[in-house]
């Protein structure tokens, strides 16, 4: 008897596999989930998700928060890809608003010359590398 575990974040899959036990830092306390657990939905605190796989291995994943969904045969951890919280989100929002003011004032860094040049150099280097490879193949 095992339970399937999926740990996913918005930016991609983190882990997927079979497990005997899953431990997660729920908002109201640490949760241990065995196969055939009742369907459950809760928020996660920053902390460690521990997975005991069917081969007896233990795997650890640090999550900065997220949502945990449990079905009898399936555990899904919807992990946040970054640390968050009221204050952090608020700061980020302020930064975005500040940027908007800059845009309106016309102080936008629209043409990032340094970056453009760096990219051009990179493109040329890649081209040269590609040419060399071509030459070798002949």
């Amino acid at each position, binding site marked *: 008897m095992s339970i399937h575990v*999926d740990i*996913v*974040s*918005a*930016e*991609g*899959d983190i882990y997927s596999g079979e497990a005997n036990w899953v431990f997660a830092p*729920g*908002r*109201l306390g640490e949760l241990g989930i065995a196969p055939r657990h*009742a*369907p*459950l*939905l*809760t*928020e996660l605190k920053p902390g460690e998700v521990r997975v005991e796989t069917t081969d007896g291995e233990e795997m650890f994943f640090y999550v900065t928060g*997220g*949502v945990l*969904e*449990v079905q009898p045969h399936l555990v*899904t951890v*919807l992990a*946040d*890809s*970054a640390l*968050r919280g009221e204050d*952090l*989100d*608020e*700061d*980020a*929002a*302020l*930064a*975005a*608003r500040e*940027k*908007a003011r*800059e*845009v*309106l004032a*016309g102080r*936008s*860094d*629209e043409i*990032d010359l340094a970056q*453009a040049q760096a990219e*051009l150099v*990179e*493109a*040329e280097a*890649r*081209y040269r590398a*590609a040419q060399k490879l071509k030459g070798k193949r002949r």
Partner: protein
Amino acid sequence: MASGKEIRTKIASVKNTQKITKAMQMVAASKLRKTQNRMEASRPYAERIRTVIGHLSEANPDYRHPYLDTRDVKRVGYIIVSTDRGLCGSLNVNMFRAILADLRRWEDEGVETDLCLIGAKSHAFFRRLRTNIVAATSHVGEVPKVADLVGAITTMTDAYREGTIDRLFFVYNRFVNTMSQNAEIATLLPVEPVDKAELQEYWDYLYEPSAGELVDGVLDRYIESQVYRGVIENVACEMAAKMVAMKAATENAGKFIDQLQLDYNKARQAAITQEIAEIVGGAAAV
């Protein structure tokens, strides 16, 4: 007609340009592949979270979250995703045109608009118009992080929650295939209720703490995952458009070089003919 040397210099310079456009085309092609993988990777999260929302709204029918309520429209918000850099054909221009049509429609109805801009190209464009830009961010790069977008999104969702805006739209380029990308205007808020048919084998969860308290966090994450996905998709579109544009530029440069080569040969031939004529003329005079 230009002299042989002039044409030769010109050919050399066009060849250099061609090298660069060719390189950019190849770089865009490889980046496109990587971005498409990233698009795939973001799908499971978005799908799961949508199912969770379906369950949540089903679980507490009497609790109406502001995100799920439709209000009369007095002011609307737009989150606009554009590229940071140019050289990608008409990708941004087509999108801005679609947005302008939309904005004009709202103006006719007497509805005001707030804009949230992601990407340097949209900053440059909308700055010149008399628009109300409330949030902006740029240079999220080809590997965007959700964390880079949270600020801009929070500004808009807060405005919705406080009732400043009554509807939130999201504009990005949808990736159809390498040759075609469409500007897409999607509604972010209010969140469309999930079809009950989508919730196969319906059962209820245990909620910790309560369904009402969970809804907030889940909905915010849902919105973020949607915007994130749109930003990734827009990067894919940028790369595809850049690839096509650079391919065309490379081909044009090739045609240009052929023409110049032809001119050069003609000039050379003319010079030789003239020289022979001069020698013959000189010999006859002697």
